[in-house]
């Protein structure tokens, strides 16, 4: 019986068919991110949002050369507002990601460096935080502390630190067994010195990657909260607020005012995960599973 074509595809390496060369996706991803970051930095310098005042004569216009993303229900250009919104979301996402990695890094460092009972307790705490539905916890925090950028950032940071804690802990555990750490300890270095001089510099790449990977999560969380009316103040052009505002126009058939802000969440997220995949394939296989998104 001849081996079927589909079997051959499912079974690479023995079928004579060469495995597909990895696409140069990371270049496209980097390029996309660069364009978006440039837009976020440059557009506010050129177009002031004050000029985007309500203009009812231009309300609800579909995409056209003058307004590539159309206009919203009060006549504001969706493209410009989306770029402003992306800027707000990026800043909130970046701060929240840094916050969560700092918390997670400290916990992971403490757990990994202390070991023993402290390690086990801290890891149970990590498990505990992982069993909370993140959005619900965020809703709880924001509801009790008035919707604001700070409340959103805090709620993202305190719910998303567990991934970083796991990565840092496993990295510290492997560093602890290295000869240069043994040498430092037998040379009389204290715990703090070992952490500062030997652990932190070796952890830097992982921490950086964890932060970059956390940004899309943080943005997602921010937009979800804003969409529910529990995020950033409603007057602020953020991607979540814009999708929320676009809801009414959408029911009237004006799809563009929600579609484009959403695309500005999807595209950078895809770009970041493509980059992460690229880095992961070239990095230490041990923390692959920890970084799975």
């Amino acid at each position, binding site marked *: 019986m001849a081996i079927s074509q*589909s079997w051959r595809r*499912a079974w*690479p390496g023995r079928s004579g068919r060469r495995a597909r060369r990895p696409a140069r996706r990371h270049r496209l991803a980097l390029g996309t991110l660069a364009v978006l970051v440039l837009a976020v930095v440059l557009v506010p310098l050129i177009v002031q949002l004050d000029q985007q005042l309500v203009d009812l004569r231009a309300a609800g216009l579909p995409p056209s050369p003058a307004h590539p993303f159309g206009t919203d229900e009060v006549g504001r250009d969706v493209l410009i507002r989306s770029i402003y919104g992306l800027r707000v979301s990026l800043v909130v996402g970046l701060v929240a990601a840094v916050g969560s990695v700092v918390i997670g890094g400290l916990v992971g460092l403490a757990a990994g460096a202390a070991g023993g009972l402290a390690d086990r307790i801290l890891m149970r705490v990590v498990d505990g935080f992982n*069993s909370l539905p993140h959005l619900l916890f965020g809703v*709880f925090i924001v*509801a009790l*502390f008035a919707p604001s950028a700070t409340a959103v950032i805090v709620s993202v940071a305190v719910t998303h630190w567990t991934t970083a804690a796991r990565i840092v802990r496993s990295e510290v555990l492997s560093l602890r067994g290295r000869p240069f750490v043994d040498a430092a300890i037998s040379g009389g270095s204290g715990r703090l010195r070992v952490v500062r001089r030997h652990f932190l510099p070796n952890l830097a790449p992982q921490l950086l990657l964890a932060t970059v990977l956390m940004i899309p999560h943080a943005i997602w969380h921010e937009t*979800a909260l804003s969409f529910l009316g529990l995020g950033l103040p409603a007057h602020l052009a953020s991607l979540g607020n814009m999708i929320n505002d676009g809801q009414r126009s959408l029911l009237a058939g004006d799809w563009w005012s929600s579609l484009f802000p959403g695309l500005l969440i999807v595209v950078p997220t895809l770009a970041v995960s493509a980059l992460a995949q690229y880095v992961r394939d070239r990095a230490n296989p041990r923390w692959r599973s920890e970084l799975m998104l």
Partner: protein
Amino acid sequence: MTWIRIVAWRLAFAVPLLLAVTSGMFALAKASPFDPVRQYLGERAMVTSPEIMAQIRANWGLDRPLIEQYATWLGNLLAGDLGESRSMRLPVAQVIGERLGWTLLVVACALVVMLAAALAIGTLSAWRRDSWLDRLITGTAFTTEAAPVFWVGLLAIWVFSVSLGWLPAGGLTDAAATTVTVPDLLRHMVLPVAVLAFSQSSWLLLFVRESVIGVLREDFVTGARARGLRGRTVLVRHALRSALLPFITIMGARVPELVTGAILVEAVFSWPGVAGTTIKAALAVDFPLLAALTLLATLAVVAGNLLADLAYTVADPRVRVLGVS
């Protein structure tokens, strides 16, 4: 009996977790700058005398120390009393009781759809690995994974309700309907269930694909092929079956994401379930209701993990013998 040990272990973890979550909620509520009495009275707070406000405060037990408030709440909870919802002016148990069924209905249907779709499409994708079909499937899955569920829901409303007019945009029944009829309910369920299943199934699909591809490389698969078994038989009976094992555990671990998805889907489609009520409770700073709903969600997560562990012992004989690591 391994499963008794598993249940005992999970419960030993669940009790401190629930205590930590609930006491954390009370600590946050205490730190909150909002005055629940003013929130409750709304505009009437302007014209209500301080004595009456103090009276309400005393009725709710807010004048007592935090520990005492928490102990009272916990005691009432164990006695089956969840308190009174401040925004809906109804017992919390009644608010949840009326809505829990609708949430479970949507989530259960979505789970069935997503399991069936992810298993079938994921296996197909692994089988036709590197074909245009596989690339289309994985590309769509990665995009769905990146797309916020509420945005997908809005786009679905735009396509199927606004443009095509096939399905209603939200709610449980037609606005004019006075009773819930099955055909009407089914029509209203299609979009929420489909969106929830669609947004949750992408990671599952990718996971099934990865593990089937992994198993297809194993020796026993080669052996089965060498013995002359049909390709399809090997795929479904050998490869898919082994690939399912890690899948059961990961299902249990995804309950938090399912809760998040349910909250957003119910909010988009104005579905009258408990998850969407959470948002209303949060916007009204209705602490008793919010606390009960948070507790409920945490319980769902604990139950999900427990069920996954138990299912794993049934599915994998090795665990039954060796115990959980």
